Each structure stands twice: as C-alpha cells, then as structure tokens.
C-alpha cells in the first residue's frame, strides 16, 4: 500500500498523537482485570499477526507461524529460567533465535510457491509441535513449562500485573507496527509488492526474489519471536497445545479477516477475533459452527477483509466529491 492519503502532515501528526494518547490512557479508565487480560492478548495476537503479514506481503502463505511462536515462547522461557537472563535479553535473544531458524528454513523452502509452500510449512509446524510434546527434557512435554516469571524491565522494575503489562505489550506492538509501516513504505516494501504481484517480472527487471522473500521471512520470524516471548511472560505458563497448526491458521485468519494487504488488517483482525469467544460464551454449543460460518461469509462477501470496507468508503467519497466538483465547474 504505497498510496498516499491527502491528509496534511501536521494534521497527520495531531491525529497520531490523539490515537497514542487514547491507547496509553486505556488502563487508566479503571477496566477490570478481565478486560485488561483481553487487551493484552489482543496486543500479543496483533504482534504475531503482523509478523505473518510481512510474509504474506511477499505472496508466501505460511502455516509455520505458530512454530516460530513456539520457538519464541520456549526460547524466552529457557533463557530466563535456565540461564537466568534478564527479560529484555531473553526477548531479543528468542526473537533472534526465531530469525536464525527462519534463515535456515527459508533457504530450504522459500523456492517453493503456492500450495507447495503452504503444505510444507504445515508439515514444519506439525513437526515442531510433535517435538514440543516429545522432547520432554527440554520442553516439559505435554504439561509444558510452569513458573515463568513476570518480566523485569530495567529502570521500571517488575511488570507484575495486567495493567502494567499492557504498556509493555503496547510499546513492543508500536515498535513493530511502525517498523513495518516504514518498511512497507520503503523501497523494500515496493520490492515485496513487486514479488507478490509477479515474481517473474520482478526478477526480469532486477529484483532478487529469493533474497527479498528470505528477508521478509526473517523479519516475520523475529516478530513472531517477540510475540512468543511476550506471551510466555504474560501467561507465565506454556504448553505444546498453544502452538498447533490451528494457531497458525488463526494468525492467517486474523490477516484475512482484517485485510491481508494493509498494515491495519492484521491489527483489526486480532481486535475482532481475540474477544470473539467471549461473545459466544452463552452459545457454547454453537460457537464452533458460528465461527466457521463467519469465516465462510467473509470469504464470500469480504475477501479483502474489514479494511476494504473503509478503503472502498474512502475512495468512494473521494471519487464522488471530485466528480461533483468537476460537474460544478462544467
């Protein structure tokens, strides 16, 4: 999305300021722990969904995102518990671990396209899941790892409740979000769009598809690592069943429902899908069916996600205004 809106820069900044203000003041309105819990989960999911988004941006649909999510979580748990590293160290280390894994894996599988890539990443995810279950000595087997500590941040101290954690998650989220924003607007973003729209043309005009896909895959994995680390220190308990391929599917669905090819998409997706089960509480028996139907309806009527509604609206307004204006003149 390298199209530029016609809002003036200073207006933009004010707009941004207001949004940030709202975001940071949310916990101050006296929400119950339950809502804070949801918000924290929304942020963590948003981070992870954004990680997948940059991979989708290069036209590769990965079902191995939960595998990186897992590596990030287990990694962070180990770095803090076994090696006794500080939280921030573990956060970065686990993120980089995922990155390294992505570089190795990417070299092997990124030459595959379309369905083949989907299926192979699916297999990778299943394998990681099985390992998480069976390497009991490292992963604690089926019951996973308990007793993970609340994060401790230098100069701030222990982040020991859901309100404080909200700020931590929010900061990480904003860093990720704006980094991606910059990357998408950058020449590299243009490169990713090119690869997605036509790999052969891109390579025939001088782009190196493998390199670009690999970088995107790497960044996506690093972000997944961040999300995983945050998740581990938020729930302070991780188990293999948080990382099945259905989790990967969830991140994919968040992107699709929100709108995969706009940076706002995954965020909206996380915002919509994370609390969804709470709305279905009273309909326990039907929740699964409803969930499935919602997905089907979306694919049928809103394949480009919620964002597309706003975009269509925006363009529609712009068009009509311009049109009427021109009519005025003639």
């Amino acid at each position, binding site marked *: 999305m390298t199209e530029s809106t016609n809002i003036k820069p200073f207006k933009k900044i004010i707009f941004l300021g207001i949004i940030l203000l709202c975001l940071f003041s949310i916990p101050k309105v006296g929400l119950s722990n339950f809502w804070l819990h949801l918000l924290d989960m929304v942020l963590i999911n948003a981070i992870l969904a954004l990680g997948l988004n940059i991979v989708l941006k290069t036209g590769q649909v990965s079902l191995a995102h939960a595998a990186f999510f897992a590596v990030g979580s287990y990694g962070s748990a180990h770095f803090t518990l076994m090696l006794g590293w500080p939280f921030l160290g573990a956060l970065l280390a686990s993120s980089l671990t995922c990155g390294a894994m992505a570089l190795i894996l990417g070299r092997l599988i990124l030459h595959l396209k379309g369905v083949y890539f989907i299926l192979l990443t699916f297999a990778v995810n299943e394998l990681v899941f099985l390992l998480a279950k069976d390497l009991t000595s490292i992963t604690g087997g089926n019951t996973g790892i308990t007793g993970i500590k609340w994060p401790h941040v230098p100069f701030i101290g222990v982040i020991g409740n859901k309100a404080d954690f909200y700020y931590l998650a929010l900061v990480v989220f904003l860093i990720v979000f704006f980094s991606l924003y910059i990357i998408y607007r950058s*020449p590299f973003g243009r490169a990713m*769009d090119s690869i997605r*729209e*036509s790999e052969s*043309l*891109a390579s*025939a*005009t001088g782009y*190196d*598809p493998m390199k670009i896909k690999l970088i995107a895959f790497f960044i996506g994995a690093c972000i997944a690592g961040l999300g995983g680390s945050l998740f581990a220190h938020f729930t302070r308990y991780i188990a293999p069943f948080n990382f099945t391929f259905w989790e990967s599917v969830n991140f994919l669905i968040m992107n699709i429902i929100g709108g995969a090819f706009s940076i706002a998409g995954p965020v909206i997706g996380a915002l919509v899908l994370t609390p969804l089960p709470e709305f279905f509480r009273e309909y326990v028996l039907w929740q699964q069916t409803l969930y499935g139907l919602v997905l089907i309806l979306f694919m049928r009527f809103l394949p480009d996600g919620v964002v597309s509604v706003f975009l269509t609206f925006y363009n529609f307004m712009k068009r009509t205004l311009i049109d009427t204006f021109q009519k005025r003149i003639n």
Partner: protein
Amino acid sequence: MSYILEVQSVSRQFGGLIAVNELSFGIESGSIIGLIGPNGAGKTTLFNLITGQIPVSSGNILFENTSVQRLQPYERVKLGLARTFQSTILYNDSTVFENVMRGLYASHPPRWKSYMTGTRSFAEYKNKQEMRANELLDFVNLLPFKNSLAKNLAYGHQKALGIAIGLSSSPKVFMLDEPVAGMNAEETEQISNLIRKINLSGVTILVVEHDMNFVMSLCKNIIVINNGKKIAEGSPTEIQNNPDVISAYLGVEDV
C-alpha cells in the same frame, strides 16, 4: 568488430528431446536482429536461455565478452540484458506509473542507508526516478494513462507498458518476445517505430517474432532457426531467397 552478445554452441535438453542444439551466433552492438523460425523451432527456449529463465545444458553465453550463463535473470538485467514477455506480464493491480517505478527501483536500487537516514540524497534519488518514469511513459506514449491500472489498459498499450518496464533498467541489449503478436497493422506500425526509436537511442535489439513483414521491414539482420539449429543468417533479402528457410517454412506455414 566484436559482439556485444554472443551465443557459443548452446544446447538445452528437456528430458529426451533437444530443444536447442549446438546453437551459435553473435550480435553486433547497435544492430536490430530478428530471430525467426517455424513453431516449435526453439525460439522461446533460446530466448529464455539467454535471459536466464532456463539454465543451459551446455555452451557459453557471452555478454560484453564475459560469460553470463551461470547468472540469475536479475543479475543479467543488472548487466544490461533486458527482456519483455511474450504474454504481457505486468503488475496488473498497480498503476501504469507504479509499474515503471518498480522497474526503475529494481534495476537502480537506492542506497539503503540514504533511505534510513532520510537525507536529501534519497529525495533526489526519488525525484530522479519519478522524472525518468515520466520520460519513459512519454517515450512509449502512455503518459496520459499513467494513473490507470495496468489491467485496464488496451492490449496494444499493455505491450507498450511491457516495453517501458523493460527499458526502465536502461539496457544495452533489449530482447523482445513477439512484441506484435495479435496486433493489427496500425498497432504493429506504432510498435516497430517505437523499436526503431529505442535502437536509435543506442540500444541493441533482438526480436523474436512470427509476423514476417514486421521482421523483414524492421531488422537489418535475421537469424533463422529450425529444430533447435541455426539454418540461416543474413539480410532480409538473403533470407527470403534461402532455399532451406523456404523449405523449413513451407513445411509448416507459408512466408
């Protein structure tokens, strides 16, 4: 006079069948060469071998006297060996302008540092590319359509856009794969004028085409291949009177 692009006994097998067989020829800088041959003669294969979409089974491809047959397509583009696609491949969901911009960014990448530091140098770079894009669009007469989506263009215009994208890498040798396939006389005329214009700006042209009249009128020198072998090379008149060529074509279609 040395060749800018030279193909030395290049072969390519697909499983059993030999698509290109011990083929050799050279192209002099600044010329317009036509590459013709009946269907299934191996034209497109040869084309893809030179651009690097397909690796050669054996033989050398020299570009400015350095062998490039091991290089990836994008690396050959960087050296100045650009191509267009037979079935027009474009960034369909992007504007015409964006299409060309992508080509420019791909072949003349900006300095990552200058972008991150957001210094004036990047702004200059950006302006330069945008000006260049406008020039190119003007050059192929697409400036009026710069903001419409590529997929909404007329067929002839799409071909022209393909050429503009190819030119965005400011190539030394420009290879066109059936540029006028499925065009009426008038459009064909426009394209051949365009190609001449490109050639005049100092770009060597290699064009693969079915349309005989088009090739004959356009090219100074023509290479004819059949069954993966070169059967003739020379000026249009020589080719037209070459018995092998005639027989090769009479077998398939009439000249």
